[in-house]
């Protein structure tokens, strides 16, 4: 049991809780960002925004998302990227599974700590995608593409901050309140 956090949402979080509209709206938005016409030269640096949004919601609102959403957005990504059906869906489901296993622990961290804790998932996703491509006999691997995972880790803090604003989460004050009441 996480003792650092109050059992019930407090203050702003109570007024603006994460809703289904917010969750799926932001997921669609993140998916849209990956569809933008990125420059060919920086393509390999573009992080997977869809997965980042999925992970955020699986950590902070696991009841609203889950494996089903990961599967659906994975299939959409497969179509958008023109790869085999189920490739990204499988990878997204695996990442979501890991995130759901440890979401109680990840929930309480401050944003930079959370970015560190979540980096194995973000990096592991890119590694898994490349390895699966290799296993399916799609040729030689361009290991540069692992860098997208690093960029995703670096972009986690601003994204988490934005999403926190949308749902009224206040991490530092929640922790502080708990500490003063002790």
């Amino acid at each position, binding site marked *: 049991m996480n003792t650092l956090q109050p059992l019930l949402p407090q203050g702003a979080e109570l007024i603006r*809780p*994460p*809703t289904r*509209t917010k969750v799926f709206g932001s997921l669609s938005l993140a998916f*849209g960002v990956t*569809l*933008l*016409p*990125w420059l*060919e030269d920086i*393509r*390999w640096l*573009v992080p997977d925004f869809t997965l980042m949004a999925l992970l955020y919601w699986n950590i902070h609102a696991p*009841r*609203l998302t889950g*494996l089903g959403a*990961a*599967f659906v957005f*994975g*299939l*959409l990504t497969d*179509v*958008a*990227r*023109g*790869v*085999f*059906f*189920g*490739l990204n*869906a*499988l990878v997204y*489901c*695996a990442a979501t*599974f890991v995130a*759901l*296993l440890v979401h109680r622990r990840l929930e309480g961290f401050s944003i930079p700590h959370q970015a560190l804790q979540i980096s194995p998932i973000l990096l592991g996703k890119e590694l898994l995608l*490349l390895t699966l*491509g290799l296993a*399916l006999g*799609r*040729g*030689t*691997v*361009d290991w*540069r*593409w692992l860098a997208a995972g690093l960029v995703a880790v670096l972009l986690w803090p601003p994204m988490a901050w934005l999403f926190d604003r949308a749902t009224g989460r206040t991490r530092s004050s929640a922790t502080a309140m708990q500490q003063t009441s002790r």
Partner: protein
Amino acid sequence: MPHTPHAPLFVREMGLPLRFGLYAFFCLLLLVLDARYATLAGVRAGLNALIHPVHIALAQPLDWMQGISRFLVKHAELARDNRHFIQRQELLDAGMRDRATLLAENTRLRALLALPPRPGFTLLAGEVIETTPDPFARRIIINRGQSHGVSAGLPVVDATGLVGQVTRVYPWSAEVTLLTDRDQAAPVLNLRNGLRIIVSGQGSDTLLEVRFLDMHADLRPGDLLYTSGIDGIYPAGVPVARVLNTEPPRNTPFARAICQPLGGVGQYRHMAVLVPTAVPTPTEKNGAAPSPHVAGSKRP
């Protein structure tokens, strides 16, 4: 206050590992169905029809910005370009007149040799919408699809040579696998001596290779390779590559040659799909043949 689902009082759903296992199994099933049996083309086209408008809408602001910057070019620049284009037009007109006479002569010669007429191709110009972000494949999406008459397997060219082949068709767009893709191959002949070989992609952006070259084959750096047309997919005589160097066999009984594509593979925004025009050929007598070209050449 918006509705949020509450935690269930009693947990009566499958455990997380079991649910993940089911999803993973389903994903693997889809992977096998798609990779081995290619049965999901319809589903893919349907989902693509959903995503395509979003794609176009997202690319629109960039197009507008480019449009504005184009609008603001200087008058002198336009006048200079205009002069240049008029000269060029005259040159091209002269070239076209030559071409017309050559075509007429060619038909006469073909008739003389009693060869079946080669099916004509019409050029369907298209624009690259995007490149697919896939580290393993060299592919692009063009804005011409099924509704424009594109079908899978058609060759794609640009002004300087062969670019690739249409591999997937969606309602309003199509996926073109570039010549440089590792799994892509084109039958060519050496213009100098008529040697027939197969050029395939390497997975790098700028180079092609001839993988299994006979070690005594007469292929030298600088040789030009044009499509031979014997596969029934690519028309004959499209420039493909220039040989850069040949490597003697090492550990294998085959030599290898590195070539440079002549077409602007992955460079330009515009390219053309070669759509065969329905030409009445002798194939109709022969019954169902995969391609009029192949069937025609088999005829005694």
